[in-house]
């Protein structure tokens, strides 16, 4: 970290700093204050709370790593881990592939309709997730839902609602997530494709790369910054999955679709076990940090399409 800032100082023209008196540190203050109070302090709090257990007489006793061990021994925790793995491994690539394909055809093969397609495919992202969840409960419903009705035309029979069956619940929720967030991947790829340098594409075309071949060997590699940022956002997004699951199954039936969000919510607010809730929070936090750091080390930092700068900073 100090190396980064050190280099930036050398690059920074001296006079910029001169026209900034000490009072200019006030520019930084509000953001830092928000960070300390609402991000850093809560993190420190869950960390310390996770080592204590609240007794019957409302006194806290230091229990060390006991709560961690008991969480790790909880079968529900491992269901959550499995569900989160499935969630991330399915939603992120599927959203990328569908969103990227749609973006490719919109950007490369439409003109007059481009704005219309870009807007329409993004609409699920801006539709309130609590509304979406209830609509999909209705779609999945047995007898009067349209899913069982229309899928039966294709020979797929659904005897009960897929969110009511422990073996299918998580997949049924994943479908909803994919439906909602594919538009986001689409728009990110739209931005990436629209900004591809035309010279490179023309050169590739002169070399005889057309259609699929152009897409596969020129466009996809050049879009890797977008893919990396979608991956990073996808991992964090997966770990904070909550509304869809809470509203459609509340983690059921019998914990089959439990995710970290509902697990934290149930433990902390329904069961009121603060120490255990804090411990799970810390585990989620650690997972997020580890996964993000691993990605940043392997792929470089790419948090937005505009952040390619970060890599060189």
């Amino acid at each position, binding site marked *: 970290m100090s190396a980064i800032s050190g280099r930036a100082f050398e690059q920074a023209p001296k006079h910029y700093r001169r026209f900034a008196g000490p009072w200019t540190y006030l520019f930084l203050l509000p953001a830092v204050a928000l*960070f300390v109070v609402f991000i850093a302090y*809560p993190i420190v709090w869950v960390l310390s709370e996770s080592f204590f257990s609240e007794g019957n007489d409302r006194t806290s006793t230091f229990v060390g790593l006991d709560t961690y061990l008991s969480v790790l021994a909880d079968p529900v925790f491992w269901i959550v881990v499995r569900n989160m793995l499935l969630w991330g491994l399915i939603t992120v690539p599927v959203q990328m592939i569908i969103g990227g394909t749609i973006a490719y055809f919109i950007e490369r093969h439409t003109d007059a309709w481009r704005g219309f397609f870009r807007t329409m495919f993004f609409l*699920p992202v801006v539709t309130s997730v*609590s*509304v979406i969840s209830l609509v999909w409960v209705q779609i999945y419903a047995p007898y009067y839902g349209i899913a069982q009705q229309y899928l039966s035309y294709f020979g797929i029979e659904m005897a009960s609602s897929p969110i009511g069956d422990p073996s299918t619940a998580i997949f049924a929720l994943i479908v909803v997530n994919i439906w909602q967030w594919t538009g986001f991947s689409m728009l990110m790829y739209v931005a990436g494709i629209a900004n591809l340098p035309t010279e490179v594409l023309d050169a590739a075309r002169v070399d005889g790369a057309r259609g699929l071949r152009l897409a596969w060997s020129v466009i996809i590699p050049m879009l890797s910054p977008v893919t990396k940022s979608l991956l990073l956002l996808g991992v964090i997004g997966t770990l904070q999955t909550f509304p869809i699951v809470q509203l459609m199954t509340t983690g059921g039936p019998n914990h089959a679709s439990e995710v970290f969000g509902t697990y934290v919510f149930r433990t902390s607010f329904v069961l009121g076990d603060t120490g255990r809730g804090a411990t799970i929070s810390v585990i989620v936090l650690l997972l997020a940090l580890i996964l993000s750091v691993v990605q940043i080390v392997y792929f470089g930092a790419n948090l937005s399409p505009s952040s390619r700068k970060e890599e060189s900073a």
Partner: protein
Amino acid sequence: MRRRHHPTANRVIIHVVLLLVLALWMIPEVYMLSIGLRTPEQAFDATLFAWPLTFSNFITVIRDNPLPMFFLNSLIVTLSTVALVVAISSLFAFACAVLNLRGSLTLYATLLTTLMVPLASLVLPLAILLKTFGWVNTYAGLVFPYAALGVPFAVVVLKAFMEDSPKELFEAARVDGCNAWQTYWHVALPLVRPALVFVGIWQFISTWNEFFLALIILTRDEVKTLTIVPMQYSGLYMANPGALFAILTLIALPLILLYVVVQRAFVRGLLAGAVKG
């Protein structure tokens, strides 16, 4: 100008396929509206469309429920958050990108760790913190945490834009005797306007639809935002899907309409951001 060599038939096929995929993709949205427009007799029909249409569900739910109140709550929370995020993040980005304050990049790197923190791990401590502040069931209880979570992304975008702005303009402002605040206000902010708009729109969308913290902090009806009321209506209108889906449509509509209006500016900001690399 490009793609002259593409046969027209090919383009027509691509448009038709895109429209078909879109039609498929829009089924849940259409279904929502369609159930809202049904009479009680058709409400449980397992079809996407049902005739005839009736607006009576919409009239009933608008008459019987304080939807404008929830809408206003959402609007207050969202607009306050957007204003706070835009102001605070642009100040911070300016101090990093233009003023190059000593230590600002270390603070920037620290701030960025927020982007790796899932809200799921923060709700419990935030709930307890906000209880200590006496901010449960207040707008402030949502606005400040949302702003804290939103600022880092906004800073990333704004900092990149400011770094790409012509340095001579800042230099000229300094020579003309502008102090840091005047340079920020009269030079930096107008320069990065597309980025401010982009950041503002994205913050608006994510704040308007945030569910987890709102569910925990807002328990009294008078302060509830639009995103957390569908749950209670799904119980209230369990036997009357027409009314339930009318109300869901009304809850989803404001943000959809807003996005359609601002999408051009939003995409422009996104495209401009991607050029930066």
